[in-house]
């Protein structure tokens, strides 16, 4: 097996027939068991199930269903699976408080990937309840960044970031409520897509915040993220925020031009809230995007600073609805940080929650109207400072680090609050040799444009010409 294969390479060269598909899956599972566990990114492997999936694929239909045909993938442990026979897969939400819980249903998007012929072979580590941005998890494990094992992967889709950056699988689905796809994608040098509000169903995904949760891919290439996104979008009546938006084949837009696209580097909140060493890298990368024939300007977004704390309040208020009984019953099994983040929402009354929802929609309407009448896409850093080490960012052991760690979501939370789509793409390395990434944020349902921009960046910055050491 060759680590770092992308989906076209796997599809064309590794899984051409039943025998090679089984062989390739065996190799992927061996890497998950070896390297994946070494970097503390793997929760569990379902190799037998995955071999049965391959047999069903080749028994039923010899013609490939899609470019994902027989390609093994591993997703964040929040994604439920209930096979037709036997018990559901472990569904613990990264928490000892849910130990041995199993999924009652298969997540809607997992069914969509099954329909496309993808093979589902494992689950990756999540931060407890997906409620944390550093990636620390004393129960499920704290994934090590493949670029340097002393550093965090970011969270909460930390295991997904780690297994993709280590080259074991090409894509992994994560979830993003305040930055949990984009932060680990950026920390690990990956492409990460946080889709528009309502574009991708969250049914069957371990919930945190019904209004803010989104799900999407982390991958090494823009192509692979676009391919998976194309398969997982679509209306779902079982998701209360699902929107019946037009179905788009994002691959068809992948290599499109971006001539004349107006990009705005937001300076007042995003850049100003980012340490100079990172802000300088992002500013320089932004200037280089002019070579794509884009039109660049600096912009300021009024009221954007309000959205960050309000996102925190909304997450905790809604998480409380989901998890309060479990906290009462099983708080001894939980990380005190998680308990605090959930309980913060207990004291929000129904009136406050209603006002918060109305304020969110009002701010979104106003900001979207103002910003996108001037530009097409705004650009920001992802991490507001250089990636910290696992030791330095361990809030459990170093409570004094808490406020700095709270700042990690500075550049990502506003995007969730406004419901906008965003893509992150690596553009270079920091002083410690860890990835630095740029975030493109577009108007609602502009994923096709964001994917084109990310593709231009991929070809221009050639980030993956370097690779992390794998052993």
């Amino acid at each position, binding site marked *: 097996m060759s680590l770092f294969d992308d989906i076209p390479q796997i599809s064309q060269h590794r899984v051409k027939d039943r025998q090679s598909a089984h062989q390739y899956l065996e190799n992927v599972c061996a890497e998950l068991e070896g390297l994946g566990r070494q970097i503390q990114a793997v929760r569990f492997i379902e190799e037998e199930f995955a071999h049965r999936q391959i047999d069903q694929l080749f028994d039923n239909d010899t013609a490939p269903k899609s470019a994902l045909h027989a390609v093994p993938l591993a997703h964040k442990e929040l994604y439920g699976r209930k096979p037709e026979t036997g018990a559901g897969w472990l569904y613990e939400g990264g928490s000892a408080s849910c130990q041995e819980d199993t999924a009652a249903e298969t997540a809607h998007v997992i069914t969509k990937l099954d329909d496309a012929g993808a093979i589902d072979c494992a689950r990756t580590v999540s931060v407890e309840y997906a409620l944390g941005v550093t990636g620390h998890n004393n129960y499920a494990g704290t994934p090590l960044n493949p670029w340097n094992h002393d550093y965090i992967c970011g969270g909460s889709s930390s295991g997904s970031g780690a297994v993709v950056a280590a080259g074991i699988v090409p894509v992994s689905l994560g979830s993003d409520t305040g930055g949990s796809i984009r932060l680990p994608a950026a920390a690990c040098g990956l492409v990460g897509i946080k889709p528009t509000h309502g574009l991708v169903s969250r049914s069957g995904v371990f919930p945190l915040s019904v209004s803010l949760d989104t799900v999407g891919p982390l991958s090494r290439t823009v192509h692979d993220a676009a391919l998976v996104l194309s398969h997982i979008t679509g209306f779902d009546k079982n998701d209360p925020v699902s929107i019946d938006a037009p179905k788009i084949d994002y691959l068809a837009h992948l290599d499109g031009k971006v001539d004349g696209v107006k990009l705005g580097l937001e300076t007042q909140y995003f850049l100003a809230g980012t340490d100079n060493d990172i802000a300088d890298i992002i500013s320089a990368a932004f200037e280089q995007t002019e070579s794509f024939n884009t039109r660049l300007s600096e912009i300021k977004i009024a009221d954007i600073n309000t959205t960050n704390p309000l996102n925190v309040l909304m997450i905790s208020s809604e998480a409380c609805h989901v998890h309060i009984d479990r906290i009462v019953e099983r708080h001894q099994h939980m990380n005190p940080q998680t308990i605090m983040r959930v309980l913060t929402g207990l004291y929000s*009354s129904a009136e*406050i929650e209603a006002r918060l929802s109305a304020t969110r929609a009002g701010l979104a309407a106003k900001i979207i109207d103002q910003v996108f009448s001037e530009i097409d896409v705004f650009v920001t850093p992802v991490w507001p400072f250089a990636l910290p080490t696992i030791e330095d960012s361990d809030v459990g052991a170093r409570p004094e680090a808490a406020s700095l760690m709270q700042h990690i979501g500075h550049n990502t939370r506003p995007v969730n609050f406004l419901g906008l789509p965003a893509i992150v793409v690596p553009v270079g390395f920091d002083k410690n040799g860890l990835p630095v990434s740029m975030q493109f944020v577009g108007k609602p349902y502009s994923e096709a444009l964001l994917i084109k921009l990310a593709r231009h960046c991929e070809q221009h910055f050639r980030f993956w010409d370097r690779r992390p050491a794998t052993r």
Partner: protein
Amino acid sequence: MKKDTETIARYHEKLVQAGVSDTLIDQTKQTNLELTEMLLKTPSPEQQTDMNSLYRYYARAVSSDK
């Protein structure tokens, strides 16, 4: 859960009885107060809408663009 005053007080009591530390509860109450204050300082929206209606509107705009 219903987020009325009685329910919130009942859950508060359950947490105390379950042994969740007073310090932790006080800290979360304080954080909630600070965040709520920020919400209340934010002017009420001029237009009354909700996120799903708003985004259905944007989705229709994308459809008519196609």
